[in-house]
């Protein structure tokens, strides 16, 4: 029964990714779709950290920044192919997450929040201040990934926007698949157990520090890949990708969608990526309405979008 619920979730996600373009009147919509997927990937990582393991991070955009700048700088200074640069960024993010996670994951609640916040700010400062290398606040060019050209030679001809829609969509689906696997695995149970009661988790033999660290490193990898994809898609990156506001945005998406729900990650990313686009029609009132919608969702759906809606649907049928 559990197995089929995992496959059902994946099937629905895949269907949405495949079917949505049928209603796209222009390339602009493909771009918005790709942005949702890129954000959704980072948010899926945060679902593992916040929703499964119950640990907060207000600095995960820092890892997105590391992933993004790896794609910008490694090709220029190390002569790496952008795809390899992406892997390098991922490895670097994982290593940094492992190093800083060991001391700071001993902290709980808002102390952990402030420590991770500090990490995010640190990354932004370095990226903004090391202007000779990073280009500073003005940003840095990112080379072409080149995969689209490769696909063209074998007869698959996609527009740039279509290619990124498909490519980021694949990453999101793979990320969701892994997160769903983890949820119902022994490691996932250990993470959810320590979320509910650390002392009871220790008592059944869970090495709490190790599992927290694993979740932290994994979520950093998700954020880093998300940052790399954003950089390669935009072919340009600024330190804002690592900034405080981006971190907050990611956590907000996680909570709005339903912190412990993998499809919720996609819903949260979609809501907060789409709404600002839709609300631009309201001009001056845009931010007010956006804030109001966020508050209403949290008041009436305290468990987040997807868990609350699915409970409602199950109650009706």
């Amino acid at each position, binding site marked *: *029964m559990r197995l089929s619920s995992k496959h059902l979730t994946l099937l629905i996600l895949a269907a949405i990714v495949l079917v949505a373009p049928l209603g796209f009147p222009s390339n602009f919509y493909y771009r918005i779709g790709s942005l949702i997927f890129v954000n959704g990937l980072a948010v899926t990582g945060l679902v593992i950290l916040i929703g499964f393991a119950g640990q907060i991070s207000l600095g995960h955009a820092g890892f997105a920044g590391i992933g993004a700048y790896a794609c910008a700088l490694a090709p220029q200074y190390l002569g790496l192919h952008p795809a390899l640069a992406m892997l390098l960024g991922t490895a670097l993010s994982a290593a940094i997450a492992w190093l800083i996670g060991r001391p700071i994951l001993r902290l709980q609640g808002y102390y952990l929040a402030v420590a991770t916040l500090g990490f995010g700010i640190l990354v932004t400062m370095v990226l903004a201040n090391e202007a000779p290398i990073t280009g500073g606040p003005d940003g840095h060019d990112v080379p072409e990934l080149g995969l689209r050209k490769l696909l063209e030679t074998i007869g698959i001809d996609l527009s740039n926007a279509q290619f990124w829609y498909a490519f980021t969509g694949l990453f999101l689906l793979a990320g969701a698949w*892994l997160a769903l*696997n*983890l949820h*119902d*695995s*022994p*490691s*996932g*149970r*250990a993470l*959810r*157990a320590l*979320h*509910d*009661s650390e*002392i*009871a*988790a*220790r*008592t*059944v*033999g*869970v*090495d*709490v520090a190790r599992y927290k660290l*694993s979740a932290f490193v*994994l979520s950093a990898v998700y954020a880093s890949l998300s940052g790399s994809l954003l950089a390669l898609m935009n072919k340009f990156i600024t330190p804002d990708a690592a900034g405080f506001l981006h971190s907050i945005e990611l956590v907000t998406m996680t909570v709005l969608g339903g912190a*412990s729900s993998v499809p919720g990650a996609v819903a949260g990313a979609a809501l907060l990526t789409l709404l600002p686009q839709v609300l631009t029609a309201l001009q001056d009132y845009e931010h007010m309405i956006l804030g109001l919608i966020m508050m209403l969702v949290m008041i009436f759906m305290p468990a987040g979008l997807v868990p609350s809606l699915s409970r409602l649907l199950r109650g009706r049928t």
Partner: protein
Amino acid sequence: MPLLRVEGLGIDFGGLCAVNDVGFQVEPGEIVSIIGPNGAGKTTLFNMISGAYRPDRGAVALDGEPVTGMAPHLLARRGMSRTFQNLQIFQKMTVLENVMAGCHLKERGNFLADLFSLPATRRRTAETHTTAMQLLERVGLDRAADKEASSLSYGALKRLEIARALALGPRILLLDEPAAGCNAVETEEIDHLIADVAKSGVAILLVEHDMKLVMRISDHIVVLDRGEKIAEGKPETVARDPKVVEAYLGIQTKEASGHALG
């Protein structure tokens, strides 16, 4: 050699001596109960033995090896399992998942293998699924397996916690007031369960307020008062001990002894 040996154990909280110089032994298959008035230090003693607190004095040895102040997850690997006075259930997991989490030491494996749901992971999950269902049957919760734990009644949660503690396959089980808040029927079920577990060779250390239960199932009783051990022995010996009667009632008469513990 005793399975658990506690010697001269003591801890202070900010200058207040909570437990002082407590010692006793537990053999495999034996049920040892710790009793005493409220605030006597029973749970504190439990927390020191199970690694939740680091004792200031004394030593704990499991199977002859020193384990004083060892982290709870390492004690679990050596076969020590416990339940909590004020329930520590994984509320947002299902009843079945709670017990499966209890099998952690048997089912844990490579984090990456779990991430990719490799065959090894699926096999381990299937194995613990079977074990957990058997344990749920044993405590009479198999029909609630797929319910969220938070939806269970208090008595059912008490039994769930025992099932989770048994999932570890412990050599010694520490039960902190397993019958607290349970009605007479539930208490009797727990009573049978404990006796059953002990019969299979597991040593049991019990903190319990229900004197009938304690007198009925204990092989050995340790009495604490104000952090110190005041008496120790077989149930019938302890029940007649004037010091024990005084600790419970504050008076020292033969009638009181009869009313209190008889």
